[in-house]
């Protein structure tokens, strides 16, 4: 059961990579990377149930924060703004 | 008092994240919460008295229930638009006037708009919100203002003002 859901989520992250590769503009690629980050959190949560390792949920929380900071930085880069505006 | 509230909140957050009762862990949590409080306490919680008003907490719970319901509705709306073969979209960016005063209430309003059916906040300029709407059903300002923020504005006003 959990294996099937994990395979589905991995397939979805592959779809995100398709958008990263073929995206017509830079913004499309950034949206796909943002969505990929959220999908990885779901994959970590399901892996916690599958393997029973307790540290995977910590990785999920750290991944939320890192993906957020990365997206904000990329957005600032795209709008050509300083980081403290 | 403001600093104490913030310190207790941060320390509880630390304890929930680490979830052990070792002495070293508690000491590290106290130090980290203290440093964060010293640096950031002047920027947040400018009116901490509102935190201890039970009426506001009651409206906050009502707001969360309304919000979760809208959120689920939003997803079925998106599902309908994505799955239908003709793709019934008519996107546009509209200007919405909101009457909230405090910054935190405006941020929560913008976040709520982002998670409700077919709308996402683009920018905020004083009290004007610019909202990208996936299906512009009418271009009359009074009608779409009621449609987009009418559900949340009164609740947020009761919570924060």
């Amino acid at each position, binding site marked *: 059961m959990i294996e099937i859901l994990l395979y589905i989520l991995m397939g979805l992250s592959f779809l995100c990579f398709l958008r990263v590769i073929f995206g017509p*503009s830079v913004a499309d690629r950034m949206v796909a990377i*943002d969505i990929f980050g*959220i999908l990885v959190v779901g994959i970590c949560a399901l892996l916690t149930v599958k393997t029973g390792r307790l540290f995977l949920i910590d990785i999920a929380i750290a991944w939320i924060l890192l993906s957020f900071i990365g997206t904000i930085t990329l957005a600032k880069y795209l709008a050509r703004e300083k980081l403290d505006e | 008092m403001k600093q104490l509230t913030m310190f207790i909140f941060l320390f509880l957050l630390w304890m929930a994240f680490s979830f052990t009762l070792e002495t070293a862990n508690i000491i590290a949590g106290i130090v980290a919460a203290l440093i964060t409080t010293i640096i950031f306490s002047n920027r947040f919680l400018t009116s901490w008295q509102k935190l201890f008003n039970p009426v506001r907490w009651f409206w906050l719970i009502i707001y969360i229930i309304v919000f979760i319901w809208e959120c689920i509705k939003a997803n079925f709306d998106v*599902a309908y638009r994505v799955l239908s073969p003709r793709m019934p979209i008519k996107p546009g960016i509209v200007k919405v006037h909101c009457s909230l005063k405090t910054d935190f209430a405006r941020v929560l309003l913008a976040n709520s708009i982002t998670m409700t059916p077919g709308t996402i906040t683009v920018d905020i300029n004083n009290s004007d919100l610019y909202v990208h709407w996936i299906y512009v059903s009418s271009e009359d300002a009074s009608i779409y203002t009621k449609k987009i923020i009418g559900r949340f504005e009164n609740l947020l006003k009761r919570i924060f003002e």
Partner: protein
Amino acid sequence: MNSISYILFIIGAAFDLLGCLGLLRLPDVYNRLQSATKSVTLGTCSILLGLFFHYGFSAIGIKALIAIPLLFFTSTVAAHALIRSSYKAGIKLSDKTVVDHYKELKQ
């Protein structure tokens, strides 16, 4: 308890699927962001809630419960930053767009 958590996992995966389909199908970056942010965020929140129901009030359950508001706030703010910066970078709205009030602010 286990069956509730499995139902929540399946609902979450279904919403993620919808979000990624929207990411592929919709015409321009603004509409893609609409579908993707809402569906994928709610799907992942649902998976985390299922994790809470699976483990109850243990270390994992509490952490999953804290991760839900964290994920909610970060994903909405990230979507907001992305849509604003892509407008500022001059990416065109799709042909179906009917109204654009934001243009007046720029001038």
